[in-house]
């Protein structure tokens, strides 16, 4: 899969069901987006593992075991409510949204652009840039544009 649609759904559902940790397919994009979530404090750990559970020690992903490989995210709850309420995709297969650096700045400041609403206090937008997958504020700091992947709140 080429998008974060699966990850968004799994993370949202996991939080709603009050799960302790969730297993997500192990792909480069999923790992990158999970890293952003971890840095922003929505998720307390990201671990490689199998479909049964996280690995105790390092196990390389090979052609033989790739079907069982997963990424395990440990979910966070604070004061009896989930830390992440909503995670939605912005770019969809039917409509991909790419912006340049100026448009990132307006979005990060809270102003809407095109069909994308501005970033609310407490919200993050995960973007894919030439420098990698990161949060929109980091992209603004670098002064680069990219593709809007998802929005987490």
């Amino acid at each position, binding site marked *: 899969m080429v998008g974060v649609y699966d990850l968004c759904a799994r993370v949202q559902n996991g939080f709603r069901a009050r799960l302790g940790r969730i297993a997500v397919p192990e792909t480069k994009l999923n790992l990158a987006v999970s890293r952003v979530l971890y840095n*922003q404090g929505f998720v307390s750990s990201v671990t490689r593992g199998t479909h049964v559970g996280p690995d105790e020690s390092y196990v390389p992903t090979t052609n033989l075991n790739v079907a069982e490989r997963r990424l395990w995210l440990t979910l966070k709850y*604070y004061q009896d409510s989930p830390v992440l309420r909503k995670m939605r995709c912005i770019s969809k297969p039917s409509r991909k949204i790419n912006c340049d650096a100026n448009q990132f700045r307006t979005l990060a400041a809270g102003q809407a652009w095109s069909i994308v*609403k501005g970033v609310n*206090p*407490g919200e993050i937008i995960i973007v894919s840039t030439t420098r990698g997958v990161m949060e929109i504020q980091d992209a603004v700091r670098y002064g680069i544009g990219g593709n809007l992947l998802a929005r987490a709140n």
Partner: protein
Amino acid sequence: MSAVVARFARILPRTLGTRTFAVKTTVREDGIDDTIIEELEALYQSRSEPLLGPYESIQANRSVIELWKQQKLAEMNEQPVDMKALEKEVIKEYSVTPKPNDVDRKDSSDDIRITGTPEMLWSLDLNVPYEEFRRLAKKTLVVKRTVQMTRLGKLPSMYALVVVGNGNGSAGYGEGKANDAAKAVMFATRNAIKAMNHIPRYDDRTIFHDIEHKFKATKLVLWARRPGFGCRVAPIIHEICECIGIQDLAGKIHGSRNPMNVIKTVFEALKTQRVPSDLAKARGLRLIDVNHTYYQGITPTRSGRPKF
């Protein structure tokens, strides 16, 4: 010992132990004192009463306390004693909980006050001081005539929804039903005051962030706005903002605009706000208010607390 005294001896409280009742009485032929029997009978009577609690059965406790006092007197060899001090000492020694001050309070006129119109009824159990109650903003927003259909006909009653707030972050709504509108409003006001709780505001003037909330068939969108903007929202929401103390807000109601449900939606929506301090703790971030730190904080153009 005779069978009579043996029967009474079983019900004596443990603390008495092997002490004897040293009371001046005439000794009967079979060696049993009249007063002992009377007192034991009183004890027996008091014991057979249902013990509803430490304050309800003061009578029961009274008889035991008298007994202990007499014992104490005997111990002190009948010196002239201050009865009040003696009672205090007995109570302390035997850990008898003293009667609280407000158990048989005769003057309860301070409990309930009727302020002007019969709609405003204050009482102690509202947990709001009288002065504070008078200064609260009470807005009757919905008054409806409801009907209960029975096999004997229509039973009408009046329903009222009142929003109550102190203009400084505390507000709540309450519903009341009664046969006449004034009583319904009174019940609603009291329920509203009981249901008051704190609503977080940014800078004490607006909400923290844009809110989208759906309750029943009412979809509500609220936007935080700059200082001096005003509350550009539907009239019902405007009244609620005045009660809460929100001065800058923009909003739109989609779907059902039923006033009762809109009020409930607004209160629910304002409760879903994400306060930055809680966010910081939940996500482990260091959050700084850009406006206050870097732009010296744009101060509100109006003073915080509206005068009612």
